[in-house]
């Protein structure tokens, strides 16, 4: 489970008689904003059911490639129990590692060779680096939520949910790892429900957009 530091109160958007969980679905749209009200793209959203059994999503087999001395993609959200394969499409070697509590591992990626996928069983945030190229940085978010995704460039994300009570949690690489924000809500009769989550604290400044892959000293 994510440990939410600041959980807003229960937000009942639409009251009245609730259908049994699993019946008629509705669309939930979450808009994420920075603390100064600007849309935040790339935020990770996870949705847990509160009023019905909370079945984690089915594990997947994901891929995080190494291209031009960078992780591609640089963020994955995967259900617990999933595996991630780390190919190396570069002409140089990499040595990827994580010392995050949720998954500690190290894996040499010699060019032109295949390595067995890495399995992520424990829920949490995993920060990845390369021991040879310090500018390489990526994240794997491991979740036990049945629904998850990332906001688009307009800071918006939508999901189809059965009616019921949920908790929505927001996280972004530029928030501190423990500072994700959670909100509990109920999806009622309406076909569409919208909620806006604004981060309480400013984001950390972004790293350089174009990291210098030529940095050698």
């Amino acid at each position, binding site marked *: 489970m994510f440990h939410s530091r600041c959980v807003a109160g229960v937000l009942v958007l639409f009251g009245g008689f609730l259908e049994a969980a699993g019946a008629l679905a509705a669309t939930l749209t979450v808009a994420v904003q920075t603390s100064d009200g600007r849309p935040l793209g790339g935020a990770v959203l996870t949705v847990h059911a509160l009023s019905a059994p909370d079945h984690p999503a089915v594990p997947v087999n994901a891929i995080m490639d190494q291209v031009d001395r960078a992780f591609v993609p640089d963020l994955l959200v995967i259900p617990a129990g999933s595996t991630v394969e780390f190919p190396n499409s570069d002409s140089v070697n990499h040595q990827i590692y994580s*010392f995050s509590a949720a998954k500690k591992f190290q894996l*040499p990626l010699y060019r032109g060779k295949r390595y067995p996928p890495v399995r992520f069983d424990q829920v949490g945030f995993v920060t990845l680096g390369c021991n040879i190229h310090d500018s390489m940085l990526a994240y794997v978010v491991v979740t036990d939520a049945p629904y998850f995704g990332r906001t688009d460039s307009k800071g918006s994300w939508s999901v189809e949910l059965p009616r019921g009570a949920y908790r929505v949690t927001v996280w972004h690489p530029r928030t*501190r*790892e423990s500072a994700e924000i959670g909100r509990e809500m109920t999806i009622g009769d309406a076909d569409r429900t919208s909620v806006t989550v604004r981060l309480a604290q400013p984001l950390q400044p972004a790293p*350089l*957009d174009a990291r210098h892959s030529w940095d050698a000293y």
Partner: protein
Amino acid sequence: MRSVVRKTLALALLACTAATAHSADWIQLPEWEVDLDGRLVSSDGQKSFVNGGLGTLRYDHPQSGLRLGRARFALSEALGEVWSLRLDASAWADDDRNPVDLTEAYLQFRPYPFAGYRFRFKAGAFYAPMSLENRAAGWESPYTLSYSAINTWFGEELRTIGVEGQLDWLGTRTGHGFDLALTGGVFGWNDPAGTVIATRGFALSDRQTTLFGRVGSSKSSPYQPIELFHEIDGRPGYYAGVEARYLDKVVIRALHYDNRADPAAFDSAIDNFAWETHFNSVGLRAESANGWTGIVQWLDGETYIEPHGTYIGWPFRARFALVSRQMGHHRLSMRYDSFAVESESADGGGAQHGHAWTAAYVFEPDTHWKVTLEWLRVTSDAANRALDLGIPRVATETQIQLAVRFALGPLAR
């Protein structure tokens, strides 16, 4: 034969490091890079120090024309997961005694980080972490062809021939905004360091001294070539440094260096003293997401000898400020250097004061090609011009270079 040597080396290292699960990866072709850097030079400079003169530019007036700036070959061989061997060899197309020679050659131990910390260890010959400017492969500057006065001197006279340990705290991997690193090195074979600064003073160039090479030319007078990487007194030197990085945007580096040479020691084999050289250097580099870079660096130190118990010292200081803007494949840079060597000798020999302006435009369409146009003007007042050469102390020298570099190999970037 080569693969036998490599296998033997790999097996020897296997014995002293932890065995890895991927033993089949041990035998691998090394990563490599070849660079060719051709120049069209126009210079009104005095006889260059490369040719045994007191000019502050790499190319003097007679060297104007087509030149080979540098031919470089670099090799990186992984020896298992955590050890690697790196070699960097260059040809500079001048009168140095070896047409091709090494600038760096070292073995590196780089275990995986543990709980946010990482230790690194190097043994061999390499650059200490001082420059914030010479950050590209081959210790080159991505901003200009000629390095600042500080880093020209660093590349000319100083090399760690010994061991270095570095402890990193990887804050940005643990949810913090900054990283920290502590570095310490112990070295030998750098006792003549300081000779160049007390003779010619500062210069602006990209001519790095090679491990078995010398500064200057044996074909010319009045200054004989200086052999820098030589042990005279048997006393190791040391340096200690610290680096702080804020989200890759701001880097601060500080270094204290002391070669702990015995200033009374003399070596007739190379006809030189051990020069006691110590200095502090502090630098800051700031970069913005929209392509601006600013670098400032200070250097403050002294070199001295004590022939027959008589102290003769040359305190020196230098600083520079560089501003650079990258726009896609294009980069414009401007740098101002200021430098001074004081002389405490009876005749004031070796005193030098000067400043320099550098402007450079770099076009880098891909990882293979790089085109640089650089204008450099150095104005300097050097006592040795009058004392040794009988020419005016003050000179203004200008050099324009057009460089085309082609890089090939997996390490090219």
